């Protein structure tokens, strides 16, 4: 459709540019712009060490945003991210306190707890037909309540296991942080799932029109539930990695990830109404958000200014290309 309107110029461009989503291109253009602005501010901004460090920080957000993207593709939203992250981190660290078996099972247990939250969300959305925004807010509150009771209102004293630290900060391949490898693996699996499996195609189908997907014989409720479970699990895994990075879990560690994860997905061109979007866009969105955060912190912007710039940038970019079609 766009080829005919843009006409001759686009026709001569390489195929991959012609097919690319304008939103993804905009996001990448913004990344280049941010890198340029950053390099004006400080020379070291373009050094490989710094960029690799940014990529490592981005990978935590990347893992969480992957789950968020899956849910947004369905036309739903997962607002339980903050405490799914915290639950994953705290439960993994808590399991580590139970001897060698606990240490071995710490990471799976953390992810399992996240999946449980996701399953509750999924049952609520898919089977009880509760709006996702509401049920995920409610499970977020319950998860928070459980953690407050568990920790007694203080930050837990358990520390992360060696394996968690290794995953978040170690190097298997020299020069490439493990966290980046993990994000790459999860991203590759996600791309494969979205484009090559019937589950992935069902996700896009449901996002476009759940009624049509149901009539085509897809068990839409099961797909929605699994998607929420995956999202919860990935949020918790992001929490596990963050706990490994900071070497302990903290009460409100997940709060800083709700808005960025939604923003990364939406800035990457995934429609908030569902059914449209590519993982490449999410990658671009995650890197964009991380670079923005990094530049703001290099400029020693206080938290207040960061929040304001954040909100303004997200609204501005959404107004550029995230608008709903004009009514009627």
């Amino acid at each position, binding site marked *: 459709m766009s080829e005919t309107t843009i006409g001759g110029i686009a026709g001569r461009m390489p195929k991959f540019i012609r097919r690319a989503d304008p939103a993804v291109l905009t996001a990448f253009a913004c990344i280049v712009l941010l890198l340029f602005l950053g390099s004006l501010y400080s020379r070291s901004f373009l050094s490989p060490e710094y960029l690799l460090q940014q990529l490592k920080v981005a990978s935590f957000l990347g893992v969480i945003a992957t789950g968020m993207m899956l849910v947004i593709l369905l036309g739903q939203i997962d607002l339980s991210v903050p405490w799914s992250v915290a639950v994953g981190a705290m439960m993994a660290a808590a399991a580590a306190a139970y001897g060698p078996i606990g240490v071995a099972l710490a990471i799976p247990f953390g992810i399992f707890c996240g999946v449980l939250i996701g399953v509750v969300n999924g049952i609520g959305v898919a089977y009880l037909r509760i709006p996702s925004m509401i049920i995920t*807010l409610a499970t977020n*509150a*319950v998860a928070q*309540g459980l953690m*407050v009771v568990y920790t007694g209102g203080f930050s837990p004293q358990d520390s992360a296991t060696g394996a968690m630290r290794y995953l978040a900060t170690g190097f298997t391949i020299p020069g490439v942080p493990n966290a980046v490898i993990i994000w790459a693996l999860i991203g590759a699996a996600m791309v494969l799932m979205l484009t090559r499996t019937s589950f992935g195609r069902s996700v896009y189908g449901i996002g476009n029109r759940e009624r049509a997907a149901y*009539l085509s014989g897809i068990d839409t409720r099961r797909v929605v539930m699994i998607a929420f479970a995956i999202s919860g699990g990935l949020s918790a895994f992001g929490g596990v990695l963050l706990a490994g990075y900071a070497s302990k879990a903290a009460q409100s560690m997940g709060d800083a990830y709700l808005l960025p994860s939604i923003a990364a997905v939406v800035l990457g061109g995934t429609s908030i109404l569902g059914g449209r979007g590519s993982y490449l866009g999410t990658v671009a969105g995650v890197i964009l958000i991380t670079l923005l955060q990094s530049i703001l912190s290099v400029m020693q912007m*206080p938290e*207040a200014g960061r929040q304001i710039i954040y909100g303004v940038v997200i609204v501005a970019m959404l107004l550029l290309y995230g608008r709903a079609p004009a009514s009627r």
Partner: protein
Amino acid sequence: MKDWRYWLAEQRGTLLAFAIFIVMFAIYTANHPAGFTANVVQTASNKGVLLAFVAMAQTLVVITAGIDLSVGMIFTLTNCLASWLVIGTGLETALGVVAVLGTGLLCGAINGAIVIYGRLQPIVATIATGAVYFGIALLLRPFPGGSVNEDLADALTGRLFGVVPASLAALFAVVLIVWVPFSRSVLGRAAYAAGSSETAAYMSGVPIRRGKFAAYALAGLLAAIGGLFLTFFTYTGDAAYASGNAYTLFSIAAVVLGGVSLFGGKGSAIGAIFGALAFRTIGDLLFVFDFDPLWQPLFQGVILLIAVSLGAFALFRVRNRLEWFL
């Protein structure tokens, strides 16, 4: 059907919320060591009224089939602003109050403009504007502090004639001045119609855009009234992220308890007020039964989860499975 039965059907959610509140409050006062005294009622109403204002704000937006996840942050922002401005002589205080309310109205209008004229999804748009409002609040009050005109604060948090809590009277006045005229005006009708079926409303020539815009803007105003009252109760301004978020969350719980449909077009702010008062009372029940306060967040979360799950009972009435999907 007779007229009163129509009225009953329309007000069912509100009446249910009222009944829940009365039962919960009866249990609460019966087990309170001090019993049903003016002091207990005053404390309970001062706590409940804050949430009631924020819940009213949320109702206005929910009626248009939207959601405002920034109400808690407008509440926090206006609290911080009031701790700077609502102080000094009578005239200065009055101007301060006007400025605080105007700020709330402006915040709501910005939300409305972005959602309606910018055509963005209310969830994402209001999360983002909420971050901006919180950032401004943090600029105003990096640390808790400030003060407020204590004469005005004491007058509005005390008791009228020694019996009626003044905050409750203020809530009643706001309902009469803001909600009643709005819900009976063309704009209010338009907000309901837009939430019920936007296409049908548009085809009938209802001014849906203006109606929705008014709803968002008034929501900001009501949240600001809440923020003002928070300042009167605490005498300080505090840019607390967790508290702003909690108010947003509880406002949704209150709206659901108050019988307002999250799909829009159904319910009233009166119901949401009783929902808010009931929610607060349920939260406080733990204290009169001597539970560890640590359990309170979990308890409130579970109530919220149960309240939103109750809506699922409508599924039993669905005859055609395709109606699962809106």
